[in-house]
C-alpha cells in the first residue's frame, strides 16, 4: 500500500450526555479514497470535525504527514492542507466563481482587487480538474453540483493533501455524481488522501478503496472495498443483513377513491401544466432529475409558493390553498427536502420540533400545552425511528444530520395528515433507518393515508411506489404503474425534453 498520510488514533470526544467518539482510529494513505460509514449518529461527522479543529478532542493523537498535529481551528487545518467539503455549501451567491474561490486571499494590484488574475487562476484550477465552469459566472446561478466542484477547486487551491467529503452526493443528480467521481479519481491519481462519507452503498463500491465502519462512536473495523460485498459492509454497520426488493405490483385496490387531484397547475418556470391524481392508500412516486420541478410542484400544491393557475381537489371537493396553513387544515403535510432551511428548528428540542405541525392537538384550556401528552408521543416516535439521542429534550442542533432528518419525519408522522408529501424523505439516513421509515410509510398507507414520495434515488422509487410519475423541466413526461416501470423507462422520461 501507499505511504500513509494521516493516522488518527484513540480519539475520544464527549458531549454532555453523549460519548460521541470512543477510542476511534482511522488511517488514510496517499492516493486512496477511504470511505467512512456508519449509522446516523455513529460519529463520522464528529470525527472529521475533530480532525479539522472544529471540535477539540478529549484524548487521542493525530499524525499528519509525519508530524503530530493538533489544530485549533479549521483555518489552521486548511493552512496545513486538510480541507473539508461540507454537504451544506458555504458560498456567496452574488459573487463570481473566482471571487468565491479566492475569498479571504484575493489577488490584488495596489488597493484594488485584480479580478482578471483571479479568473485566470481559477481557470487553471478547473483545467487541472478537467471541468468546464466559467470563473466569471455568478455562483448563485450554478447548479448545486457545479457549486460543489467549485468548492473542490477551492480545496485544491489551498494546496490540500487531504480532502474530506461529508455526504457530498446527497444533493447531486446522477450525472453530477458521475462527474464528481471523475474528479475524485483525478485527485486520487495526484496522490491526495481522500475521506468519503456517504450512506449510499453503490457509491462506496464504485469509488472507494477501503471502508472504515463506525458504530456507536467506536471503530468496528476496516475492509478493503474490492474484497468485500455490500452485505459485509451493511452487516458490519448495523449488525444484520438488510433485504431490499422492489415492489412488483401496486397494492392499491382498483376502486380506491381519489383523495387528491391537481389539475393544470402552473407556478413559475418549473411547474408547467401539471395534473395528477393521488388515490387513497397509494404511494405515488415522483421521479426525475434534480431541478425537474418536483419540489416546486409540491410547494405549490402545499401553498408554500404562489400558484399562477390550476385547481386542487381533495376528496372530490375543490379547495383553495393559499398558504401552508390552509394545506395543513385540509390534511396535507409536506416534508421539505431542505431540512436545515425548511425543516428543523435547530435551537429547539426534539419535542418542540416533533409537535410543531400539530400543536393544536396538544392544547388544553387557555392555550396551555399538555406537555405530558406531547412528550409521550415524541418518545414513541423517537423509539419507532430509532433516533439516536440522549433524551427527547436534546436540542436538534446537537443531533447528527441523519437524526435531524428523523425528527422532521416524525413531525409529519405525528401530524396525522391524510395526505403526506415526502420530499427526499431518506436523505442522509442510514440503511437501517431507511428500512424503518419505509416500513412506517407502508403502515401509513395500510391505515388509509396517501403518500406522494419525491425521490432522486431510483431504487427507492422502484421499491416504494405503487405508481410513478416522471417529471422533466417542469412538466410531467410519463406515468407508470410499478408493474411496468423499469429504471430505463424512467430515465428516458426524465431526460426527454417535452412530453409527447
Amino acid at each position: 500500500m501507499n505511504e500513509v498520510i494521516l493516522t488518527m488514533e484513540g480519539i475520544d470526544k464527549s458531549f454532555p450526555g453523549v460519548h460521541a467518539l470512543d477510542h476511534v482510529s482511522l488511517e488514510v494513505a496517499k492516493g486512496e479514497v477511504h470511505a467512512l460509514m456508519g449509522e446516523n449518529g455513529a460519529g463520522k461527522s464528529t470525527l472529521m470535525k475533530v480532525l479539522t479543529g472544529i471540535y477539540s478532542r478529549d484524548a487521542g493523537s493525530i499524525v499528519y504527514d509525519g508530524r503530530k498535529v493538533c489544530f485549533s481551528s479549521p483555518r489552521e487545518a486548511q493552512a496545513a492542507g486538510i480541507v473539508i467539503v461540507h454537504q451544506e455549501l458555504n458560498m456567496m451567491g452574488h459573487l463570481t466563481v473566482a471571487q468565491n474561490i479566492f475569498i479571504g486571499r484575493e489577488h490584488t494590484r495596489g488597493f484594488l482587487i485584480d479580478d482578471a488574475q483571479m479568473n485566470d487562476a481559477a481557470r487553471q484550477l478547473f483545467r487541472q480538474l478537467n471541468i468546464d465552469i466559467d470563473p466569471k459566472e455568478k455562483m448563485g446561478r450554478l447548479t448545486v453540483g457545479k457549486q460543489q466542484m467549485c468548492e473542490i477547486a477551492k480545496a485544491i487551491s489551498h494546496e490540500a493533501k487531504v480532502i474530506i467529503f461529508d455526504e457530498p452526493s446527497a444533493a447531486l443528480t446522477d450525472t453530477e455524481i458521475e462527474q464528481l467521481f471523475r474528479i475524485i479519481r483525478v485527485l486520487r491519481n495526484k496522490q491526495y488522501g481522500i475521506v468519503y462519507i456517504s450512506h449510499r452503498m453503490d457509491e462506496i463500491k464504485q469509488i472507494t478503496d477501503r471502508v472504515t465502519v463506525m458504530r456507536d462512536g467506536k471503530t468496528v473495523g476496516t475492509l478493503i472495498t474490492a474484497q468485500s460485498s455490500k452485505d459485509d459492509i451493511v452487516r458490519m454497520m448495523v449488525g444484520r443483513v438488510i433485504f431490499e426488493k422492489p415492489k412488483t405490483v401496486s397494492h392499491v385496490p382498483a376502486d380506491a377513491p381519489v383523495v387528491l387531484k391537481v389539475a393544470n397547475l402552473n407556478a413559475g418556470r418549473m411547474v408547467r401544466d401539471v395534473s395528477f391524481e393521488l388515490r387513497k392508500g397509494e404511494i405515488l412516486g415522483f421521479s426525475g432529475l434534480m431541478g425537474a420541478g418536483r419540489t416546486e410542484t409540491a410547494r405549490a400544491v402545499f401553498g408554500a409558493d404562489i400558484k399562477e393557475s390550476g385547481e386542487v381537489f381533495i376528496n372530490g371537493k375543490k379547495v383553495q390553498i393559499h398558504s401552508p396553513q390552509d394545506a395543513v387544515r385540509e390534511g396535507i403535510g409536506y416534508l421539505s427536502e431542505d431540512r436545515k432551511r425548511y425543516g428543523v428548528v435547530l435551537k429547539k428540542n426534539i419535542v418542540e420540533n416533533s409537535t410543531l405541525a400539530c400543536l393544536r392537538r396538544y392544547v388544553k384550556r387557555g392555550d396551555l400545552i399538555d406537555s405530558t401528552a406531547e412528550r409521550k408521543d415524541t418518545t414513541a416516535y423517537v423509539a419507532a425511528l430509532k433516533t439516536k439521542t440522549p433524551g427527547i429534550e436534546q436540542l436538534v442542533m446537537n443531533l447528527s444530520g441523519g437524526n435531524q432528518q428523523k425528527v422532521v419525519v416524525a413531525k409529519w408522522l405525528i401530524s396525522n395528515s391524510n395526505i403526506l408529501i415526502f420530499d427526499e424523505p431518506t436523505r442522509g439516513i442510514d440503511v437501517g433507518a431507511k428500512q424503518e421509515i419505509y416500513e412506517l410509510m407502508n403502515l401509513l398507507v395500510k391505515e388509509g393515508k396517501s403518500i406522494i414520495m419525491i425521490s432522486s434515488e431510483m431504487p427507492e422509487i422502484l421499491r416504494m411506489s405503487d405508481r410513478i410519475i416522471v417529471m422533466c423541466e417542469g412538466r410531467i413526461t410519463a406515468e407508470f404503474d410499478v408493474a411496468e416501470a423499469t429504471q430505463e423507462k424512467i430515465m428516458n422520461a426524465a431526460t426527454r425534453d417535452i412530453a409527447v
Partner: protein
Amino acid sequence: MKAALQKFKNLRFVKLIGFNRVVLILIIFLMYGFFTILTPILRNGSSFVNYNRVMSALNYAYFIGFLGLGVTFVIATGGIDFSIGPVMFCSALISGYCLTKFNLPLWFCIFISIAVGALFGSIGGYFVAFRHLPSFITSMALMQVAKGVGSIFTKTQSVTWPAAEATSSWYRYLVKWNNLPTGFVILCLVAAICAVVLYKTRAGRYMLCLGSNKEAVRLSGVDTRRWEMLAYILSGTLAGVAAIFYVGAYTTVQPGLGDTFNNEAIAACVMGGTSMAGGSASILGTVIGAIIVALMQEGILAMGFTISYQYVLTGLIVLGAVTADIMSRKRRN
C-alpha cells in the same frame, strides 16, 4: 476547579433557573457590597445601606422590568423593539392628561395607558409581521411617532399625576403601600404570567420557534404572521403597564423623552440570557437584569456620579452581554 464548576452547574436548583441567572444573582450581591463599601468613601460618611435606597432602586426596577418583559417576547421572535421607552412615556402622557385635564376616572385612565401601548404594539407588529419591514426600522419610526404624539396631545406640557394625598391617587399603591413594595409583588406576578405564556402556551412556543427558523414554522402550517404580531402587541401592552409604574414612582412625565429606557430594558433582557438572535429567552433573567440595571443606577447616583455614567455603563453592558451570547453560540457549533 473545572470539575467543581461542572458539578455546580449540574445541581438541581442551578439547572432549574440556569447557570447564567445564578451568576446574575451573585452579581447583584457583589454590586450591593461594592456600593456599600464605596459610597461612604466617596461621599464622606453617607451610607448606601438604608431602606429608602432599596425602595428607590426597586422603583426603577419596576418599569424597566415591565418594559424588559415585553421586549423579551419580541427578541424571542428574532426582532427588536426600540420604541418601548417613548411608547411608555406617550402612554403616561396621554392617560395623565386625560386624568388631570379631563378628570376621567383613574381606572379608565389606567386602561387608556395600557390601550395606547397596545395600539403602538399592534401597529409595529402589523408592519413587521404582515408587511415584512425590518423590526429595527419599524420600531425606530414608531419611537419618533410616540414622542411626537405624546407632545402633541399634551401641547408640549409635562404632565404631573396626582400626588400621594390627592384624590385619584390610589395608583400609587400599586407601587408602594404602607412602605411595602407592592410593585415588586405585581412585577413578579406579571413575570410569572409571562413565563407561562412563553414556555407553556402555544403562542409562546410558536414565538420561540419562529425566532429560530421562521420558514420551518410556516411550512409546518402555522400562521407565523399572527404570532409574530402578538409579540409586538405584548411588548406595547407591557410598555403601557410600565407607564403606570413610572408615574406611580415619579409622578411627572415630560414629552419628547424616553429613549434611554429602551436601552436599559434591552440590556436587562440580554443580560438575563435572552439571545438577540431569537429562539431562546429567559423571563427570570429579564427580571433579574432589570434589578441589576436599577441597582446600578442607584449606586452611581449614591456615589455622587451623574446619570451620564449610567448611560455609558448600560451601553457597555449591552456590548458585553451580546458578545457573550455570540461567543457561547460559536462555542456550541
